[in-house]
């Protein structure tokens, strides 16, 4: 059964799992939470799982002989297996390291692999729609190593220019790092095709999946990604935990990025021997409660079904796109409404995005205004900022209506 046939979500039922959605933001003003691209809300099962850890078996992991530490260690380690299964990593926990967030996952590879493998004459190929997490990281590693960073162009309608990609990716390319889903344009990039292109030239392929894993089935092996990164807090999980997937042989070859406790097996005053995967990449006390919470988030999402979540988002975003673009003074950036993930970044002619989001806030509608950590992409789009509404499994068409009404109010208020 494909995504198109996925059974609709029972959104009213799902909303019961998120009590925060019932709150008011000002007297008599219901919250309409459309800032899911920044962070998603947290279902009760995740909050409960983390509370239970703190209430009943809070202990450090991997080091205590005592009962609590054993329980915490098992739960924390199991979370790695669960996440591996969720993203199709057949190597299990050894291919899944927990980090702080997507950005840190990116930095682990940039430092651990990039610093030693890159040098003058080498090229790293990114896209113009990269989040700063990838863009700034590779830009700075390139400066340190003498490598060069190149950017695959974005077309006027918000897609990657694949002809340009074929031009840029050559035998000099050592790494291709691509965002799976654009957090600004809502574009879903052809990551399998780009992986093939990278591998044809013996380059590694890194995918920033922060905006993809929350809302669609992701199989890192089907994509053939060498590395894949995402964050817990955008997928119903807690803040403070991110994931770095890496093919086992690559993670084995890489030295650690952070040094310290937990990531070592044997230490003398002169030498240290690294711990097994993935702990080699998890120096210091890790995000234990958060890792266990992420396990619960994965359970929650899968209990609903990633196909269904994807289809729900597609329906909602198409509706939002159509309603917003009913007016000629609204520009929505990126691909058409029926070919994008659940977000719309838009410009209301004559009204600055910060003013738009302020008026929206007065109507209870939470969106993001700004550059969404894609400043260079905004330069390409020719705007300094946009207003972004981003949807998730608990959002309704009525909430899209509330967004549109609030945009109408902003238009009316600022009408000359």
């Amino acid at each position: 059964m494909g995504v198109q046939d996925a059974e609709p979500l029972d959104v009213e039922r799902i909303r019961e799992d998120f009590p925060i959605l019932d709150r008011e933001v000002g007297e008599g003003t219901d919250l309409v939470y459309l800032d899911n691209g920044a962070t998603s809300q947290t279902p009760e099962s995740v909050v409960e799982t983390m509370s239970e850890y703190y209430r009943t078996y809070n202990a450090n992991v991997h080091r205590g002989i005592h009962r609590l530490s054993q329980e915490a260690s098992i739960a924390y380690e199991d979370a790695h297996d669960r996440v591996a299964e969720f993203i199709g990593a057949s190597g299990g926990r050894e291919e899944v390291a927990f980090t702080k967030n997507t950005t840190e996952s990116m930095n682990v590879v940039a430092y651990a692999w990039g610093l030693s493998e890159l040098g003058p004459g080498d090229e790293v190929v990114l896209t113009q729609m990269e989040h700063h997490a990838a863009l700034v990281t590779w830009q700075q590693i390139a400066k340190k190593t003498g490598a060069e960073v190149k950017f695959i162009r974005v077309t006027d309608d918000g897609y990657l220019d694949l002809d340009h990609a074929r031009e840029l990716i050559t035998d000099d390319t050592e790494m291709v790092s691509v965002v799976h889903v654009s957090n600004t344009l809502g574009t879903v990039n052809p990551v399998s095709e780009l992986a093939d292109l990278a591998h044809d030239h013996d380059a590694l392929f890194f995918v920033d999946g922060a905006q993809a894993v929350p809302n669609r089935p992701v199989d890192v092996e089907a994509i053939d990604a060498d590395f894949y990164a995402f964050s817990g807090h955008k997928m119903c999980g807690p803040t403070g935990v991110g994931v770095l997937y890496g093919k086992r042989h690559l993670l084995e070859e890489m030295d650690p990025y952070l040094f310290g406790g937990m990531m070592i097996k044997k230490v003398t005053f002169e030498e240290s021997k690294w711990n097994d995967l993935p702990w080699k990449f998890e120096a210091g006390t890790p995000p234990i409660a958060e890792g266990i919470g992420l396990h619960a988030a994965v359970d929650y999402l899968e209990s609903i079904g990633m196909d269904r979540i994807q289809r729900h988002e597609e329906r909602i975003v198409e509706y939002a796109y159509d309603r917003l673009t009913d007016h000629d003074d609204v520009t929505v950036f990126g691909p058409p409404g029926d070919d994008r993930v659940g977000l719309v970044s838009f410009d209301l002619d004559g009204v600055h995005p910060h003013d738009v989001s302020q008026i929206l806030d007065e109507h209870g509608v939470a969106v993001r205004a700004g550059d969404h950590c894609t400043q260079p992409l905004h330069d390409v789009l020719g705007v300094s900022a946009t207003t972004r509404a981003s949807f998730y499994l608990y959002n309704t068409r009525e909430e899209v209506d509330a967004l549109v009404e609030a945009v109408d109010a902003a238009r009316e208020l600022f009408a000359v």
Partner: protein
Amino acid sequence: MVGSDMYRQQILDHYRNPRNHGELEDPTFSHVGENPMCGDEITMDVELAEDGETIERVAFRGEGCAISQAAASMLSERLPGKTLSELREMDRDDVLDMLGVDISPMRIKCAVLAEKVAQDGAEIYLGEKDLDRTSTE
């Protein structure tokens, strides 16, 4: 009109019909500043009277949100007649009083941009500061 706390008529009026918008022909000093995160940018031109202390004329130009642009417009009306010392003594509360609305914490930097640009411009003119651009970050 749609009810809105932050966008009272006065602010919208200054945003739509900015006063003293443009350039001065012969400014005593001119300075530019920005809110890098929002993309607000304002240039303030100031012309002093013959006493070298009293502000005689002000003009501004720039782009950005309604709050930043209205604040610049309102400030351009308030400054003539004030001395440079008086300008330098102004603080955030003076700007908020001038705007006459509650500004949410995230928007304070939009509100004070014009004031900071004028103040930095004065201090650079007096040789007490060395700065190309004012930034609120």
